[in-house]
C-alpha cells in the first residue's frame, strides 16, 4: 500500500498490468493442463464420444457448424442484453424512490423482499402460457432474475450513507438534488455495481432456462436438440459458447465499473480485485 502510494501513477498502471498478465498466465496454464489431461484420459480409457468427447473432437465439430451456433448465439445474446438493460433502467430509479420516500419504502420494499424469495425460474412455464413462445417470456425471465440483485444492492447503497456525511452536506445548505448528485449517488455506486455484476452473472442462466422451457431458437434450444440427438461434442461446444457469452456480459459490466468508479476499483486492485479473473 505504501509502495503504491509513493510510485507515480504510470508505474501503478504498469504494475497492475503485470499483475493481470501474471494472473492470466496461470489461468491459461491450468486450462491447457485441463484440456491435455482430458484429451489423453479419453483416449487412454477409450471413453465413447457420446459420453465424453475429447476436446479435439469438440473443436472439430464446432468448426463445421459454427455459423449455425452463431445464429442461435445472437438470439440468446439479444434476450440477455435487452432483459438486462430493462432491469437496470427500472431497478435503479426504483431503488432511489425507495431510499428517498418513506411511503414508497413501506409499500414497495416488503413486496420486493417477498418476491425475491420466490424462485423466479419456477415462473418460467407460466410466462409461456401468458406470452407464448417468442422473445417476450425470455426477456421477462432475464429481467426478473436481474432486477432483484440490482434493486436490493442499490437500496443498500443509497441507504448506507452515514449520518455525519449527511450532516456535513446539510451544513452547506445544499439542496436535495445537489446532495444526491455529489454525495449519495457516488456513495451508492460501488454497491450498485455489485448488484449489476451479480445480475450479469444470472442473466445468461435466465435466458437459457427460458429457452429450455419452450422455444425454437437460441442456445438453450440448441443445447436440448444436440442433447436429444446424442451429439455430445456439440453439447460441449454449445456450453462453452454459452459460458463465453456469460463472461463477455460480466466483463462488459466490470469494464464499465472501471470507467465509472475508477477510485473504487483502484482501491481493490492490491487485494482481492484480481480474484475474479
Amino acid at each position, binding site marked *: 500500500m505504501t509502495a503504491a502510494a509513493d510510485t507515480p501513477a504510470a508505474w501503478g498502471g504498469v504494475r497492475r498490468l503485470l499483475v493481470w498478465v501474471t494472473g492470466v498466465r496461470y489461468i491459461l496454464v491450468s486450462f491447457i493442463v485441463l484440456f491435455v489431461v482430458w484429451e489423453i484420459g479419453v483416449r487412454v480409457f477409450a471413453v465413447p464420444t457420446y459420453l465424453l468427447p475429447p476436446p479435439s473432437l469438440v473443436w472439430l465439430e464446432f468448426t463445421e457448424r459454427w455459423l449455425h451456433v452463431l445464429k442461435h448465439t445472437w438470439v440468446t445474446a439479444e434476450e440477455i442484453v435487452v432483459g438486462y438493460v430493462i432491469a437496470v433502467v427500472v431497478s435503479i430509479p426504483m431503488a432511489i424512490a425507495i431510499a428517498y420516500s418513506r411511503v414508497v419504502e413501506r409499500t414497495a420494499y416488503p413486496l420486493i423482499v417477498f418476491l425475491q424469495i420466490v424462485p423466479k425460474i419456477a415462473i418460467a412455464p407460466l410466462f409461456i402460457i401468458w406470452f407464448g413462445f417468442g422473445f417476450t417470456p425470455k426477456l421477462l425471465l432475464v429481467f426478473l432474475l436481474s432486477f432483484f440483485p440490482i434493486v436490493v444492492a442499490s437500496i443498500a447503497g443509497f441507504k448506507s450513507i452515514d449520518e455525519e456525511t449527511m450532516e456535513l452536506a446539510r451544513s452547506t445548505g445544499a439542496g436535495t438534488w445537489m446532495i444526491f448528485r*455529489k454525495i449519495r449517488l457516488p456513495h451508492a455506486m460501488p454497491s450498485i455495481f455489485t448488484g449489476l455484476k451479480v445480475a450479469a452473472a444470472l442473466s445468461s442462466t435466465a435466458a437459457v432456462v427460458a429457452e429450455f422451457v419452450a422455444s425454437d431458437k437460441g442456445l438453450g434450444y440448441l443445447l436440448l436438440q444436440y442433447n436429444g440427438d446424442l451429439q455430445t461434442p456439440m453439447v460441449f461446444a454449445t456450453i462453452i459458447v454459452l459460458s463465453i457469452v456469460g463472461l463477455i456480459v460480466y466483463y462488459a459490466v466490470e469494464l464499465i465499473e472501471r470507467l465509472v468508479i475508477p477510485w473504487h476499483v483502484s482501491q481493490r486492485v492490491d487485494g482481492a480485485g484480481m480474484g475474479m479473473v
Partner: protein
Amino acid sequence: MRHGEHPSGAADPAAPDGPSAGRVGTEIRVSALSKVFRGGQSETRALDLVDLEIGAGEFTAIVGPSGCGKSTLMRLIAGLLPATTGEVSIGGQDVSGPHTNLGIVFQKPILLEWRNVLKNVLLQTEMRHRNDPDLVDRARALLAVVGLAGFEDRYPHELSGGMQQRVAIVRALIHDPPLLLMDEPFGALDALTREQMRIDLEELWLASRQTVVFITHSIDEAVLLADRVVVMSPRPGRVERIVDIDLPRPRGLAARKHPRFTEPVDMITEIFLARGVLHSGRQGPKLAAT
C-alpha cells in the same frame, strides 16, 4: 504561517465583504438547552439546561469528559439536531434548521473516498454553488498551511488519520465562514503536529477573527487557544464553570511557561478533580460512578 503566504485577508476572493464585515451577526446565545436521546426503553440525557453566550469574534473552547455532550451541543448550535427543550440563536436569529453560514469540523474527518484531497476541500464551495476559479488557489494555499502541500491529488485512503483531519479543517475554512465549529479537530494528530496546528490556527484566527467554538479534551489546548474556556460537567452535560483566559497573543510555544497559562490549567484540573473526572493515583481508585 509557515509558508509566508496568507490565504485569507483583504484581497481574499472567498470573503464576501472583507475580513471583518462577515463576523457581525455570529454571536451565539444558548438558553436553557436540553437534549434527551430516546431509543427504545433507554433514555439518555445528554445536555441539561445549558446556558451560554458567545460574542462575535470570540474564541471559545469547550472542555469536558468524554460523553458529556460536547458533540451534541455543537450539533444543536449548528441546527443539525433539534433541541428537546431550550433555544439556540445565532446573530439574534433562532436556529431551527441547519445553520449554513459556518464551517464545521466534525470529530471524524468525513472525507468522500471518491474525491482527492483538493476536490474534498472544494466540495464545500461546490455545494454552495460557488465555482470561483480563485478558490482552487485558496484551497492549495490553505492545504500548504496545514502541511499538505503536494498531497492535493491523493485520495483519502492514501492519507493517515491526522492528514485526513487536516483536510477536513481546510474544508471548513475554504469558504471563509464567519463562524467556525470545531469538534476535537486535533484529536487524531500526533503531539508535534498538534502543537503546530494549534499555533497555525491561532494565526489564521488572528487574521480573520471568526467566532470559534472549539471542542477539545485537552485542557492545555483549550487554555492556549481560547479567550474563554467553558468547562462542562460529566453527563448530563452542564456548564460547570466559564474561565476567562488572559494570555497575550499570539501565544506561541513560550506561552506554556506563562503564569497566566498555568493558573487556569490548574484551576480547570481542580474542577475535574472535584467532580471525580480526574483522580490522583496515590489515593487509590476514586472513580466517580458514571
